[in-house]
């Protein structure tokens, strides 16, 4: 009697388990299909530049001249690659120290004020649309650079500065979480040895959370690397490697957004843009792998 009752009761549970399992499996299958098809689509388009149009990969990656309309057309994407890396890394160099200091202030110096008021304000920065950043950059930063430095004001410096504000919330949020997750015992242990607050922050808090801080930087760079609109508005979009930070330059993303409307699907010029997209996607994968690797090191 008791046994049959149990069996009756168990049945809806099994069905529930099964429904849950199938539902999650369907979701994951959908996700994986989407990702695989995107990668396949970009790769098939991007690779046809090399296999169908016979542009050499080395020429594309190391070539300095980009003129898809020239006779014959030349596809050298190095200026874009250079522009993307220099703006992203420079943006991280500007934003990282600010973010770390903001995180230290919010967690170690003024936790109450910091977490209640400062953190929401910084996170608000993440919600501002990139066109607004670009607009502000174009109307404030570019004229300022034009007045102060030689050149038109547009360029890598302006792009990096705009990007640095945009990635500030990413790095700050990750750094804040990392600092907050630090076991309380470590800090107390340091204080109990007669360390000052500064020594504790500098010698214990920052070194212990370093892998997480690096994760924040890499994610910030990845975000800057993929940003198109704001950068395009302030960088000048000249397809060559500039001689100074205040000279018009271009990035992979801005090259794609600027030209994609002017090329016919299937043409060499269009395929070449897909190759740029492929490079962007590949770099994003590299960033993700770096983050994974850093996360693995966090456990020590």
């Amino acid at each position, binding site marked *: 009697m008791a046994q049959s009752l149990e069996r009756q009761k168990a049945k809806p549970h099994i069905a529930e388990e099964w429904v849950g399992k199938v539902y999650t499996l369907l979701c994951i299958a959908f996700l994986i299909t989407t990702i695989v098809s995107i990668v396949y689509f970009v790769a098939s388009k991007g690779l046809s530049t090399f296999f169908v149009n016979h542009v050499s990969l080395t020429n594309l990656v190391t070539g300095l001249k980009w003129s898809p309309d020239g006779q014959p057309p030349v596809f050298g994407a190095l200026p874009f690659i250079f522009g993307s890396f220099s703006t992203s890394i420079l943006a991280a160099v500007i934003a990282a120290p600010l973010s770390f200091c903001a995180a230290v202030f919010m967690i170690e110096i003024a936790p*109450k004020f910091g977490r209640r008021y400062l953190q929401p304000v910084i996170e608000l920065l993440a919600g501002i649309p990139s066109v607004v950043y670009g607009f502000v950059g174009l109307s404030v930063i570019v004229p300022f650079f034009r007045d102060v430095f030689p050149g038109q004001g547009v360029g890598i410096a302006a792009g990096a500065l705009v990007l640095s504000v945009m990635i500030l919330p990413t790095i700050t949020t990750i750094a804040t979480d990392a600092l907050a997750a630090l*076991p309380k*015992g*470590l*800090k*107390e*242990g*340091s*204080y*109990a*040895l*007669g*360390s*000052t607050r500064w*020594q504790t922050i500098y*010698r*214990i808090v920052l*070194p*212990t959370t370093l892998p997480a801080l690096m994760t924040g930087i890499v994610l910030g760079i990845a975000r800057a690397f993929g940003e198109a609109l704001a950068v395009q508005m302030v960088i000048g979009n000249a397809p060559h490697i500039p001689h100074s930070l205040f000279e018009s330059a271009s990035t992979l993303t801005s090259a794609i957004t600027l030209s994609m409307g002017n090329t016919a699907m299937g043409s060499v010029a269009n395929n070449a843009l897909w190759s740029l997209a492929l490079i962007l996607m590949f770099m994003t994968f590299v960033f993700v792998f770096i983050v994974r690797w850093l996360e693995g090191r966090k456990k*020590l």
Partner: protein
Amino acid sequence: MQSIGLSAKDLTVSYGDHAAVKRVSLDFSAKQVTALIGPSGCGKSTFLRSLNRMNDLIPNCTVTGEIWIRDQNINSPSTDVVSLRQKIGMVWQRPNPFHKSIYENIAFGPRYHGTKNKKKLDEIVEQSLRKAALWEETKDRLHNSALALSGGQQQRLCIARSIAVKPDIILMDEPASALDPVSTSKIEELISELKQDYCIVIVTHNMHQAARVSEKTAFFLNGEVVEYDDTPKIFTNPQRPETNDYITGRFG
């Protein structure tokens, strides 16, 4: 008569409006182990943390009263807390080694208090590890991560780390309660060794441990000291009924 290592007078510790420790006065003798026992929440850990001003780090926590080391009241606002904590070391329930090498864990304190000489630091590291009975186990891997040590070894490392800054007093907050019996007995042996040089105050939940390692025992209840006497007397012939109830396991 032993010389006094540390002396608390009318010490009251409150979190907001709630007084966790109420007007406690206790003298701790140098070169002796004093055990603080009592049920959870009786204020013994809070009291211990006040002795090296660790409660300064907790917002909302106020400490009134006096704590005397020789002729200095360390609970006065003018006390240099940083140099005070060099004189009073602390060991916690959970070992908290820094995420650094064994060597760097020990050298951390002395280095930032001005010892830069490599030879001198080597010497301090060896001495501290020897005193904490950890030298033989770690001398071949001083530069390996301290996190690779076992829990008991980590706790002895933390004791060695606090010895390295040459304190007079060591506060221990349930130093063995997270450890297995073998590691616990090692820590207890170590405490008995260390009392030749230091004034040790230990909070413990384990009454056998208090009986084994300490000379004096204070029984805390609801933020007050109910009884403070020689350890054998507390455990064999307590004067107060509450103490008797606690040590015979009737509550707590």
